[in-house]
């Protein structure tokens, strides 16, 4: 699919055909897209976990659910979890990734890169992030009482969450490219830790529910947004970036900007889906 069309067709899908598991090839393709995503400051933060609903026990499923994610978790055959390992920043402070990029001609002398720069400047910058004064506990539940949670700088979390967001963007769009529906959703973090067994240095985030859509591709229309000028500025804050109508029209023609919600038949669709899955209306 054309990139702009992929962006345009992305929706938060909340209705999946639960009996149709996405092919493993499609799941791998999504992971391969994330694999090519840019790294934040060349730190290898990311880990992703693919979980198949039908390989979870009934008890595990029940613990994962929150009051408003029950139906989606029951419907989506696959969940992809995103993590950022804050320990990766410690590794990155040694500078090996920078050295590798220098070796293959990505980072060059033209831009100031040298062994001295890696050791004295780039790695030092990462250390300053790691050691920044404002610190918070990594509030992961400690099964069986593992002692105090580790402290991590807010700056480290800033980079880690950015890395997660980049991965989520790539994964959501790749899901659309593969003809699947996807949504970032909430689950019980404590339950996820028990099931997936991830280490305490991994910062979790909203998993992506994945499957074949039960609702229409349109899903009622593109979701509403605040005015463009509320979010984007030019030259300085408070000076909105002028939104040229001709560009908007081009993007409509390209399929990136689509008909906004609410389609007239959407509510009937929802009630029909509710009947399909025995859910209340």
């Amino acid at each position, binding site marked *: 699919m054309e990139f702009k069309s992929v962006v345009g067709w992305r929706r938060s899908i909340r209705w999946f055909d*639960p009996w149709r598991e996405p092919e493993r090839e499609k799941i791998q393709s999504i992971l391969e897209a994330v694999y090519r995503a840019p790294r934040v400051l060349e730190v290898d933060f990311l880990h992703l976990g693919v979980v198949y609903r039908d390989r979870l026990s009934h008890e595990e499923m029940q613990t994962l*659910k929150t*009051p*408003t994610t*029950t*139906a989606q978790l029951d419907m989506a055959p696959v969940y992809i979890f995103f993590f950022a390992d804050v320990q990766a920043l410690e590794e990155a402070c040694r500078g090996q990734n920078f050295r590798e990029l220098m070796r293959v001609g990505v980072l060059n002398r033209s831009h100031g890169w040298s062994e001295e720069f890696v050791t004295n400047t780039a790695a030092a910058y990462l250390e300053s992030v790691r050691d920044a004064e404002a610190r918070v506990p990594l509030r992961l539940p400690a099964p069986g009482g593992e002692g105090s949670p580790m402290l991590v700088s807010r700056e480290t979390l800033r980079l880690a969450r950015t890395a997660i967001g980049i991965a989520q963007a790539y994964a959501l769009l790749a899901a659309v490219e593969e003809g699947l529906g996807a949504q970032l959703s909430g689950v019980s973090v404590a339950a996820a830790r028990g099931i997936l067994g991830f280490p305490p240095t991994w910062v979790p985030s909203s998993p992506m529910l994945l499957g074949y859509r039960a609702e229409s591709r349109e899903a009622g229309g593109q979701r509403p947004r605040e005015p463009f000028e509320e979010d984007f500025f030019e030259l300085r804050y408070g000076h909105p970036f002028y939104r040229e109508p001709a560009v908007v029209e081009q993007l409509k023609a390209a399929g990136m900007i689509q008909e906004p919600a609410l389609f007239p038949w959407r*509510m009937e669709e929802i009630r029909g889906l509710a009947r399909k899955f025995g859910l*209340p*209306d």
Partner: protein
Amino acid sequence: MTGIDVAGVRSAESVRRWLSSRQELWGARSNNESLLETLTRFCAFAGKTPDEMVDDCLKPGKAGETLMLRTRARRQYMELVEQFEAANASRDDGNVARSFLIHNGIAMNPGILT
């Protein structure tokens, strides 16, 4: 419990809220008498009026202005609805009760049927 009839159920504030919320979302044709009849049977099953059930699940917040969900009560009602559903061998009946609670702000999450 004596005294719960369709007329009484219809006049409850929580039922008016439910029907109004349904109408706003699904349109006027989504409301019909059978909903009230089913809800009345559920009230009799629970031994509670509609307003009592909602009050059981939502309590005033500290400031008194908002309502807060009572998690345990919500879980108890989820189980009660499942029992009602089983007793009537009808997911549709259970869903009427769920719809009433949901539109009153109490999330109900049955497993999906496949």
